[in-house]
């Protein structure tokens, strides 16, 4: 069978629409070429504890492999990165808004007790001060040039996510759908003689079933899966400190959190799912906007959009495709005489929400 590999392709999901210039590509890597960092993420010590609490571990899905993870080196692993040579004590404030009503109206079908596990979520710690040791988890082994990427220290990432909830995991296990790709990566967006601007992308999940669930009642598993977290960290190379940190749920899509309830044999048809909107789930410390708007003269830099695009491509093979905006697709197809292949999906293909 021979396929004509020349056409225009559109991938449309939610309110985000793209066009691509070829529709059959060989991109990506095999399942065997999964990042070392991915294995590391799956075996982080903290989430090992979390998984032990999960009674439905046998029902966990097999995660989709990362696209480029095998090519990405591990970042700094150790106590304190040499770059952070002075004391950093940066207070981080957590902000977490309630879940909105989902497309599948889980709030109508699920027992109020279980649904309250989602609606009553609050940050485990409203404020917490992190040190240079904590922030070292987000740095590369050595600083190279803008565009450099690395895998984050999973245990260090989990330390921050615990400010939201005590049971985070970097290994997505909520059953009933394709999971992953797992991963947590950093990218050096910009460098100046004084500052480093680092962008982060983290896939994580929170296991909500309370610790005190009665032992004599069959377990009900509940997971809260953000689309993904985007982060930003500004390091002052001259002072050896972290001046700004932000880690936030992506809000670019209209629905950005997946809810899962797994109750085998409990009259809930086994599982219940919904995809909801959460306006704000964020950790923030320092005054980044003041810093970033102060006219830092970056020696080398990528745009923020490009940095986020490169990070997303580490996870998803489909992003190897060359997309162009929908509003240009028809005119391009006409001018080039090329057919169009459009994929229109209710949910997003490039995050964990659907």
């Amino acid at each position, binding site marked *: 069978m021979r*396929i004509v590999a020349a056409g225009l392709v559109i991938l449309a999901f939610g*309110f985000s629409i793209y066009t691509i210039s070829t529709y059959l590509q060989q991109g990506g890597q095999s399942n065997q070429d999964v990042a070392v960092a991915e294995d590391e993420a799956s075996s982080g010590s903290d989430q090992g504890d979390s998984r032990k609490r999960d009674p439905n571990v046998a029902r966990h899905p097999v995660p989709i492999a990362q696209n480029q993870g095998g090519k990405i080196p591990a970042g700094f692993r150790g106590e304190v990165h040499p770059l952070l040579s002075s004391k950093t004590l940066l207070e981080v404030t957590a902000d977490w808004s309630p879940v909105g009503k989902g497309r599948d109206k889980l709030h109508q079908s699920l027992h109020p007790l279980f649904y309250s596990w989602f609606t009553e979520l609050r940050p485990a710690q409203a404020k917490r001060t992190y040190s240079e040791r904590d922030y070292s988890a987000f740095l590369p082994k050595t600083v190279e040039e803008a565009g450099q990427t690395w895998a984050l220290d999973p245990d260090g990432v989990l330390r921050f996510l615990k400010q939201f909830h005590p049971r985070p995991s970097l290994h997505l296990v909520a059953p009933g*759908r394709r999971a992953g790709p797992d991963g947590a990566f950093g990218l050096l967006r910009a460098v100046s003689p004084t500052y480093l601007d680092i962008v982060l992308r983290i896939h994580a999940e929170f296991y909500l079933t309370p610790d005190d669930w009665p032992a004599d009642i069959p377990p009900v598993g509940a997971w809260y899966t953000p689309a993904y977290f985007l982060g930003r960290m500004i390091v002052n190379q001259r002072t050896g400190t972290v001046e700004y940190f932000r880690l936030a749920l992506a809000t670019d899509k209209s629905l950005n959190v997946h809810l899962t309830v797994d109750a085998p044999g409990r009259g809930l048809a086994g599982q219940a799912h919904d995809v909801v909107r959460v306006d704000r789930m964020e950790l923030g410390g320092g005054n980044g906007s003041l810093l970033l708007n102060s006219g830092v003269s970056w020696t080398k830099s990528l745009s923020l959009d490009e940095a986020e695009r490169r990070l997303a491509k580490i996870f998803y093979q489909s992003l190897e495709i060359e997309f162009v905006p929908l509003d240009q697709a028809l005119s391009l197809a*006409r001018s080039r005489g090329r*057919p*169009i292949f459009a994929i229109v*999906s209710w*949910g997003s293909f490039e995050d964990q929400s659907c």
Partner: protein
Amino acid sequence: MQKRAAQGDELAKLLAAQWEYPVEMMFLTPTGSVVSKLNSYRDFPGVHPDVVSPPKKQNVQREDEHSHTDIFLKHVSMHFGR
């Protein structure tokens, strides 16, 4: 996409009118006429073992996962192959 369609985008209007839940794959001519479609629920026989089965769908064995690829390629070949 529905917002874009409401704003008058010609292609968005066409795709929104043709789309069926949850995933619709559409093949169009360079001038924007629909040649054929594949719907993930209607045209693909099963779902991945990790995925909760929607009504009237069956989970597929892991060795059968590529059947969707075959269906897609046959469809493309039928319309565009040579």
